[in-house]
């Protein structure tokens, strides 16, 4: 029994719009700065392998703003609370980009309910020196340039506002506002996170679009993978920064292989 439309969930007083699909092993999907599109094909594909639980972070999608939630640290504790309140165990936590940063912060804090961790081109760490901008400044670049950096095929990602409803436009605007709330400063990272990533003790897979021009596999990905003991690192051909959007089948196959190894 799958619910096609998102529902609502309250976690320790914070209301979340939440999408749940599939049955079986819990898979917590933490979306990135692009938000959660309930019609994205990867969700149903992923739901063949377990129960996908996909909240919209406060301020994203239709989730209300939460006045006391304004950092990725808050989001990490919020989702650890979610796992506890639902009494979920052996959870596969998957996060993309901003969501990958949240997942990494959760794993550093407490991995006891985790079965595994999949980080999809996660942000959250500082790699270079203080004058190196590791992550392009999406707030200072023309929107087209941001799209070009984040998608292998920017034409497919281009939006035509005239074809979108007010509700869809509002979600896009809210997603950008919430991204600014969580990622403005320090910009898309926690200066301390890299130093603590050694605490990630569960099986971990890093997935990276081979054509990610936003944060490259060879620079940012290599630094991230190198900081997590025993993490596997794989790239997905034909995809940019959001491989689950550009190559959903290849993405879900990699996750499936990772899950199969966990059962063995």
């Amino acid at each position, binding site marked *: 029994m799958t619910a096609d439309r998102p529902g609502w969930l309250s976690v320790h007083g914070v209301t979340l719009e939440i999408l749940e699909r599939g049955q079986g092993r819990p898979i917590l999907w933490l979306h990135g700065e692009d938000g959660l599109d309930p019609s994205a094909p990867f969700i149903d594909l992923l739901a063949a392998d377990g129960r996908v639980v996909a909240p919209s972070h406060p301020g994203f999608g239709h989730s209300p703003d939460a006045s006391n939630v304004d950092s990725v640290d808050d989001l990490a504790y919020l989702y650890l609370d979610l796992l506890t309140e639902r009494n979920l165990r052996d959870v596969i936590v998957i996060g993309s980009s901003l969501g990958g940063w949240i997942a990494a912060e959760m794993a550093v804090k407490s991995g006891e309910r985790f079965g595994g961790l999949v980080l999809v081109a996660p942000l959250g760490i500082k790699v270079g020196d203080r004058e190196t901008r590791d992550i392009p400044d999406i*707030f200072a*670049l*023309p929107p087209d340039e941001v799209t070009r950096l984040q998608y292998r095929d920017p034409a497919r990602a281009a939006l035509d*506002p005239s074809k979108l409803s007010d509700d869809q436009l509002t979600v896009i*605007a*809210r997603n950008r*506002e919430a991204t*600014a*709330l969580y990622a*403005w400063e320090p910009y898309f990272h926690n200066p301390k996170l890299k130093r603590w990533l050694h605490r990630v003790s569960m099986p971990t897979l890093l997935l990276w679009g081979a054509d990610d021009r936003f944060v490259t596999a060879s620079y940012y990905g290599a630094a991230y993978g190198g900081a997590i003991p025993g993490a596997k690192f794989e790239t997905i051909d034909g995809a940019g920064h959001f491989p689950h959007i550009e190559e959903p089948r290849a993405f879900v196959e990699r996750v499936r292989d990772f899950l199969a190894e966990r059962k063995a």
Partner: protein
Amino acid sequence: MRAWFFSENAYHLLPDPKEYDSIRVKLPNRYYDPKIGADLYHRFIDEWKIAEDLGLEIMVNEHHQTATNLNPSAAVVMGALARDTKKARLLILGNPIANRREPVRVAEEMAMVDVYSRGRLECGLVRGVPYEISAGNHRPTRMQERFWEAHDLIVKAWTSHDGPFNWEGKYFHHRQVNIWPRPYQEPHPPIWITALSPSGAREVGERGYVVACFLTGFEGTKTVFGSYRGRRDELKLPAAALDRFAYAALVYVGETDEEGYAGARKLMWYLESNKVPPQFTSPPGYHPTASTVNAMKGANPGIFRMFQNPALGPLMDAGLVFAGNPDSVYRQIMKMYEHVDGFGHLLIMGQAGFLDHDETVKGMQMFVREVYPRLKELA
């Protein structure tokens, strides 16, 4: 009505607009010649002194990383004016406190200017324009909340005289606040706040501060002033006097309409040269979500369309520019005055771009001699 002379201290010698995509945030400062800049600083300070001699009050503002305004610290230029002037009220409008790291530092600087000028400071506290989010690196979300916490801290710093107090707020932390000097005026310098929206105006109205509108035209200004007055009615607070309301426009008075329009066209440099791409005009969270959605649909309010392609006629029709011969300018100001149920301060943007010193002074003189006496009668 009181009139205030203000100029943005622009650096007007810009490269060809084809050479750059933004006059703000990104324009390399190699285009700025400090030797010319020094001359400009002295010229603009001289013009403020002339304004005082003519009987006008003085207004200074502050902007960052932009050629449109070379006052990244209003306190510094007002420090010079506090020494160089004797009688004019000195308005800083304002300190962009939602973008400043240290409200206590703002409290100190403002107290210093207030003492230095023997109590002539009028202290504006503003949120800061969207383009300066980058310059301050402060996030554009929840700015109102940060603004009001900074305001509360500044007022408390000004009015506490018995040793350090503690402040551990949501946004600002100081365990030992005890500023020296304290302000000259009791309990503190008058506060002015800029409002663009009805919700902002309601908050200012509740507190009874002066609310200022910049280039908001007939309808925008009426909405803001109306919200201020309405909020006071709701709370059964005394009706606000006219001196609680300020309106800023581009103003040039000539001997003839033609001369006035010619001066105003030069002032329009400020709008014409304001080339800024959308990522800087609309950082996420700065504007209400509904306005962002409207902008995505291409439905910008008319006033913003006017900024994109400014022409004198429409700007005058909208009440953003008052220009012409003295009678014309008086009529235009009165039309705005009546439309918004009155205001007590006219903030005159009287210098911009290529309007030279003599032209700037002539515009001021014409205003003071021919228009101001009639406005002063409005109580």
